[in-house]
C-alpha cells in the first residue's frame, strides 16, 4: 500500500479539497421547535494538512463531521468535495468512529475487507489490499480474531485499517481516542502521526474531532475552536511545531494555554449573560443547566482552595485532576453561576462565598449552597416560591418543565430540571418524588 500512495511532500500543494460554505444544521424538536446545532459555519480543508475541530459537547462539531461524511444533510449552505457538491457518502472520504463501530460477528480481516466490497474490487484484490492495510496499521497475526478478543486499542486499529483500505483522500475521525485508556491512546496517536509524516498513509488530509486540547495541539496543523449554542466557529489557531511534538516544550504549553483562554472566553460571556438574565425579574429561565453532582462541585472547590490556594490556571487544574475540558468546564461554569468561583482569561478563582463554603461543615455548606441556589438560579427560586405559595406545598413536574419548554428544547428542559432537583435535594430547599413526579416541601430543613 505505501507504494500506492504518493509521498506526502508531493501532494502538499495546498489544493482545496473540501469547501464548507455557510452551513447551517438544525433538528426538529417537537412540532414547532427546531434546535439549531450549526450556524453559518465556513471552512476550507486543504491537501496536506491535519485539521482539528475542537469544542465542548453540544458545539456541533460532530454534526459537522456527519455532514462531511455524507451521513446527514445540512438544512442550509453548501458543501463542495473535490469541486463537486457533496450529496451522501462519497468516494475518497472514510471515517473512523469513537466507538470503533466494528461488526462483532466478522473477523478482523472481514471487517476490513467489507469496506472494499461496495467499490466492486475483485475478491483476490480485496484480500491483498486488506492484508496490506492490516500490516500497515500493526495488526499482523490478528487477521482471524474477532473484535471481542481484542483490546480497545487493537479494535481502533481495525477501525483505522478499515478506513484506510479504501485509499481515501480525506480521513474523518470522530474522537477516535477518547474511548481508550491514556497509554493506549498515546501510542495510537504517535503511530498515526509517524505514518503520516513518513508519507505511508494513502491520504491527503485528516480531519479530527476532539475535545482534548492537548491531543489537538499534538496532532494538528490547524485547530478550529467551536463555540456552543448554536455551534459556530469561535477561533482558529495555527500550529507550526515540527513533529514529533513534545508536550513539555514551552511553545507547546503556550499553545495549550492560548487555546484554553480562547475556549473559556465564550464561557465568561455566557456566565455574564446568565447573571444579567438572572437579575431580571422574571427572566433568566433560559439558561440550560448541566446536571453536575454536588460532590464534584465541592471536590473542585476543595482542590482549588487546597492545592492551588484559591486560584488556578485551568489547563493546570485539568491536568491535576486528569479531567478533560468536557468534564471540567461544566463544573467551572456551574461554580461561576452560583457565584462560588470566577473565571477570567483561562484562570479560575474562588470567591468569598466559595472560600466560606470550603471552610464550613456539612450543614453550613448546605445552607450556603441553598442560599446561592435560590438567589442565582431563577428556576430553583421559582420552584421554591410556587411550593411556598400553594397550601398543599406540592407541585407537579409538568408545571415547571412546561414553563422551561417555552424557552428551550424538551431535552434541555429535562436536563435542567434534573440538575435543579439534584441541587435542591442536596441543599434541602425542596424535595422531589420520582414516582409521583412531584415537587414538595416535605422534608426540607
Amino acid at each position: 500500500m505505501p507504494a500506492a500512495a504518493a509521498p506526502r511532500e508531493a501532494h502538499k500543494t495546498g489544493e482545496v479539497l473540501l469547501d464548507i460554505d455557510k452551513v447551517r444544521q438544525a433538528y426538529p424538536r417537537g412540532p414547532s421547535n427546531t434546535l439549531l446545532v450549526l450556524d453559518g459555519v465556513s471552512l476550507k480543508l486543504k491537501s496536506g494538512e491535519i485539521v482539528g475541530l475542537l469544542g465542548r459537547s453540544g458545539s456541533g462539531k460532530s454534526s459537522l463531521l456527519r455532514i462531511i461524511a455524507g451521513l446527514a444533510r445540512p438544512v442550509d449552505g453548501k458543501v463542495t468535495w473535490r469541486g463537486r457538491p457533496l450529496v451522501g457518502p462519497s468516494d475518497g472520504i472514510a471515517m473512523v468512529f469513537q466507538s470503533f463501530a466494528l461488526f462483532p460477528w466478522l473477523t478482523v480481516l472481514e471487517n476490513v475487507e467489507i469496506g472494499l466490497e461496495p467499490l466492486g474490487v475483485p475478491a483476490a484484490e480485496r484480500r491483498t489490499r486488506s492484508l496490506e492495510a492490516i500490516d500497515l496499521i500493526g495488526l499482523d497475526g490478528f487477521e482471524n480474531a474477532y473484535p471481542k478478543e481484542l483490546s480497545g486499542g487493537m479494535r481502533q486499529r481495525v477501525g483505522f485499517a478499515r478506513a484506510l483500505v479504501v485509499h481515501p483522500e480525506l480521513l474523518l475521525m470522530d474522537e477516535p481516542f477518547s474511548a481508550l485508556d491514556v497509554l493506549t491512546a498515546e501510542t495510537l496517536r504517535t503511530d498515526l502521526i509517524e505514518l503520516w509524516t513518513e508519507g505511508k498513509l494513502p491520504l491527503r488530509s485528516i480531519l479530527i474531532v476532539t475535545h482534548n486540547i492537548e491531543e489537538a495541539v499534538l496532532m494538528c496543523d490547524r485547530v478550529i475552536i467551536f463555540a456552543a449554542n448554536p455551534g459556530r466557529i469561535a477561533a482558529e489557531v495555527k500550529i507550526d511545531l515540527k513533529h514529533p511534538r513534545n508536550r513539555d516544550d514551552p511553545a507547546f504549553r503556550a499553545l495549550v494555554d492560548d487555546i484554553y483562554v480562547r475556549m473559556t472566553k465564550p464561557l465568561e460571556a455566557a456566565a455574564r449573560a446568565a447573571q444579567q438574565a438572572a437579575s431580571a425579574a422574571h427572566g433568566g429561565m433560559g439558561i440550560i443547566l448541566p446536571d453536575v453532582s454536588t460532590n464534584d462541585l465541592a471536590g473542585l472547590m476543595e482542590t482549588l482552595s487546597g492545592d492551588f490556594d484559591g486560584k488556578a490556571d485551568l489547563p493546570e487544574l485539568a491536568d491535576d485532576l486528569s479531567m478533560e475540558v468536557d468534564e471540567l468546564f461544566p463544573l467551572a461554569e456551574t461554580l461561576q453561576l452560583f457565584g462560588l468561583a470566577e473565571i477570567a482569561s483561562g484562570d479560575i478563582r474562588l470567591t468569598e462565598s466559595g472560600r466560606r463554603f470550603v471552610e464550613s461543615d456539612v450543614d453550613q455548606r448546605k445552607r450556603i449552597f441553598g442560599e446561592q441556589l435560590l438567589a442565582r438560579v431563577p428556576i430553583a427560586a421559582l420552584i421554591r416560591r410556587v411550593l411556598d405559595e400553594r397550601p398543599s406545598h406540592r407541585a407537579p413536574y409538568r408545571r415547571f418543565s412546561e414553563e422551561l419548554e417555552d424557552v428551550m428544547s424538551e431535552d434541555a428542559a429535562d436536563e435542567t430540571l434534573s440538575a435543579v432537583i439534584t441541587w435542591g435535594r442536596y441543599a434541602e430547599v425542596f424535595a422531589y418524588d420520582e414516582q409521583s413526579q412531584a415537587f414538595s416541601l416535605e422534608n426540607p430543613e
Partner: protein
Amino acid sequence: MAGRQPSLAILRPGRLVPSIWDVVVFGLVIGVLAMIAFGGHETVQPLAVANRRPLSLDPVNLPYYALRTTLRMLLGLIFSFIFTFGYGALAQKSRRAEMVLIPALDILQSVPVMSFATFTLAFFLNLFPGNVIGAELASVFEVFTAQAWNMTFSFYQSLKTVPRDLSDVSDSMRLGGWRRFWTLEAPFAAPGLIWNAMMSMSGAWFFVVASEAISVGKTSITLPGVGSYVALAILQKNLGAIGWAILVMLVVILIYDQLLFRPLVAWSEKFRVELSAASGLPPQSWLLNFIQRARLAQTIFKPLQILADRAVRLRSPVAVSTPRVVSEVWASRWVDYLWISVIVLASISAAWFGIGFVRTELGPSDVVATVGLGFITLARVLILIGLASLIWVPVGIWVGLRPKWAERVQPVAQFLAAFPNNLFFPVAVVTIVYFHGLPDIWLSPLIILGTQWYILFNVIAGATAFPNDLLEAAASFKLKGWAWWRKVALPGIFPYYITGAITASGGAWNASTVAEVVSWGKTRLEAHGLGAYIYNASVKGDMQRVVLGVAVMSAFVVLLNRLVWRRLFDFASRRLALN
C-alpha cells in the same frame, strides 16, 4: 456465510481423513434428508387416498405420525422466518407501512391462535380442491400463527435498535440495502429472533396438535399426526394410547430441541453486540460443536456457504436514483394525509362489513352476554396466574440462587413449557369425571398447565442474575424471613417475573379456546367462558359467533396488556431494573 464459523482456523488445509464426528454428522444430515423426502411424498396425495388409510391407535404408527407433525412444525417455522424478514423489514424501512403494520401485529397477536384455523380452513381447502395439501397448509398455517407475530416483533425491535455507529459505518461504506440487511440487520437481530422462535415453539406444538383434527361446521379434517392420534384415542377412550402419544411427544421435542434449537441458540451467541466479555457461560450445544469440529461436515457445508455468500453480495447492477422532486413529493405531509385517509376508509369499510356480518344473526344482547363470558375467562386467567405465581415464584427464587440446581432445573422448565400439554387433557378429564369435580373450577387449571413454566424459568433466570454483592449485603445486615423476601428477593426478580407473567397470560387466553371444552369418549366437560363460546361456535361452523367471540377476546387481551401488563413492565424496568 463464510466467516460465520466461530473460527476460520478450522478451514485450514490439512487432515482430510474423516473423524468420528464426521460419521455422526453425516448420518444425521442424510437421515434428516431422507425423512423430509419421505414425509413430503406422503403429503402431496389426493384427499381420497389419505382418507383410505385410516388412523390406527397401534403405537407402531406413532413415530410416523410424529414425523408428520414435526414436518408441519418445520414448515411453519420456515414460513414464519420468511414472513418475519419481509414484514419486519418493511415496517422498519417505511414509516407509512409502520403506521399500519405494527398495530396490526399487536392485534394479530391477541387473536386466539385456534380461530385462525377456523377462519382459514375453508380457504385452504378450496385452494387445492380434493387434495390433502389444503388441509396440510391449514395446519401449517396454525403453526405459523402461533410463532410469526412474536418473532416479527422481536425482529422489528432489533431493527429499531441497531447500534447507530454500525448503521453509520454501513451508510458511509455505501453497503446498499440488501448487503446491509445481511451484514448488519439480520445478524444483529439473530439472537433475539432465534430465542423468540424457540419460545413460541410451545404454543406452536400445542396448536399443531390441536389443528390436526378439527372440524368447522360440516368440514372436518383428520391429518395423520400425533394430534389426530390423540383425538382418536379420546374418542375410543384409550388411555394407554394417550400414554404412548405423550411418550413419543417427549422424545420428539427432546430431539427438536437438541438438533435444532440448542445449536441455533448457541450459534446465535456470536451475533451479540457486547464487546466486553459476557457474564455467565454462553449456551452450549453438542451438535454445534460436532459440526464445527467435523472436517468433512465443513466440506459438505462449504458449497452452501459459498452460495449464501454470493447471494448476500448481490448488488443491483443499476443504481436507482429518484429525482429530487419525486422524493420530495413522496416525503411530503400531503402524501401522509392521503395514506392515512386511505387506511381509515379501508378500516371503516372493513369494520362495517364485520358488524354487518355479525348483525345478520346476533343483536346487542349477544354482545353483552359475550363480554360477560369474557369476564369469566379473565377471572380464570388472573386467578390462575396468581396461584401459579404463589407456587413458582418462591420455588424459582430458591432454585435460581443455587447455581447447581438452576443448571438442572432450567432446561426442564423450558422443556415443560414446550410440551403440548393438551395431550394431558384427557387425563384431567378422567380425573374430574371420577371425582365428580365441577368443570367450571377444575377445568381452569388446564389453561395454565403449559404456560405456568414461563413464570418459573423467568424467575429462575432473574434469581440467577441477582447481583451477589446485594445478597451479601442483605446477609451482613441479617435480613431474614419475610423482610428478606419483601426487600431483596421479590423486587430483584420482579422485572423477570413480569416478563414471565405476560407470556403466561397470553398463553392462557389462547389455551382457553381449547381447554374450556374437553371431552373423553362421549363424556363432555364444559366450563363457562369465552374460550368455550368460541370453541362451540367454531365446531358448529357458526361464523358470526366466532367473529364476535374472537373480537371480544382480542379486545380483552389488548386491554389487559395495555392497562395492566405494560404498566407493570414499565414500572419494573424503570424502578426495579438492576443495572
